[in-house]
C-alpha cells in the first residue's frame, strides 16, 4: 500500500551507486593533481555535477518521481546557473 507512494531501491543498487561515487571522488582528486590549468576547475565541477546527479537520481529517488518534480529540480539548477553567469557578465568584463 504505502509502497506505491515511494519507490523501493534495492540494497545492491545503492551499493553500486556508492561505488560509482567513490570512483568519482578518487578521479577528481587525481585529476586535480595533474596540471590542467584553468580546465581543472571545469573538470572538477563536471565530476561534481555527475556525482550530484547520481545522488539525486538514486539516493533521493528522483528517478521514480513525477515528471513535474524532475522538471522543477532542473529548473532550479538552471536558474542558479543563470544567476551566476549573469553576475559574471559584470565581473568578467570589468
Amino acid at each position, binding site marked *: *500500500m*504505502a*509502497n506505491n*507512494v*515511494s519507490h*523501493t*531501491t*534495492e*540494497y545492491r543498487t*545503492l*551499493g553500486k*551507486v*556508492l561505488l560509482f*561515487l*567513490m570512483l568519482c*571522488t578518487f578521479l*577528481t*582528486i587525481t585529476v*586535480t593533481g595533474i596540471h590542467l590549468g584553468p580546465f*581543472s*576547475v571545469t573538470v*572538477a*565541477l563536471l*565530476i*561534481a555535477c555527475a*556525482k*550530484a546527479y547520481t*545522488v*539525486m537520481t*538514486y*539516493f*533521493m529517488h528522483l528517478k521514480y518521481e513525477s515528471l513535474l*518534480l524532475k522538471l*522543477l*529540480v532542473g529548473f*532550479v539548477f538552471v536558474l*542558479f546557473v543563470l*544567476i*551566476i553567469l549573469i*553576475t*559574471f557578465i559584470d*565581473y*568578467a568584463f570589468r
Partner: protein
Amino acid sequence: MSEKHNHVEEHRDDEASKLGMWLFIFTELLLFGGLFIVYSIFRHEYYQAFRESSLELSVTIGAINTIALLFSSMTVAMALTAMQKNDKKTALIMIGITLLMALVFLVNKYFEWGHKIEHGLYPGSALMPLLDRGHLLYFSLYFFMTGLHAFHIIVGMVLLFICLFKVKNGSIHPEKYALLENGALYWHLVDLIWIFLFPLMYLIS
C-alpha cells in the same frame, strides 16, 4: 491527484510532505547558492591567492570526510529501503551507521578547524587582518561555508536521531515512513552540498 482524493487521507499527506521537503531543499540549495556566488567571484578576482590558501587544507582529511558523507548517504538510503521492506532491525542499524559517520565527519572537522584556530586563523583573530586580501577572503569563506555546512550536519543529525527513536518505538512503520524519508532527503542535501564544497575548497591548488 483528483482521483486519489477520496482515498485515505494519509497518502496525500505523505506526498505533500515530500513535495514540501523538496521545496525546502531548493531553498537550502539557494542559501548555499549565495555563498557559491561570492566564492566564484572572489576566486575569479584573487585566483592565485585562493590556490595558495587551499594548499593549507589537508586533502586527506577532506577526502575522508567526503567518503564518510557518501557512505552515510548510502546507509540512510538503505535505512529507508529496509523500512519499506519492514526490516526494522536493519533500518535501525543503518540509521545508526549514518549517525556514526556524521560524527566522524564532525570530529574530523573539529580537528581541522582546531588546527587552523591554533595557528590564529579564524574570523576575528588578530592574525586574519594581516593576511593579504585573497588569503583573508579564502579563509573567511572557508570558515563560513564549512561552518554553515557543519550546522546543517548537526540539524540533520538531530532529525535522524528523532527518526531513530520513532523507528524504535514503532511510530515510523512500513505504512507510514514519511518522516524517515524526509530526514533521508535532508541528509542527502547535506551530502550534495559537500560534493561541491570539497573540490572548490580543497582541490584547487
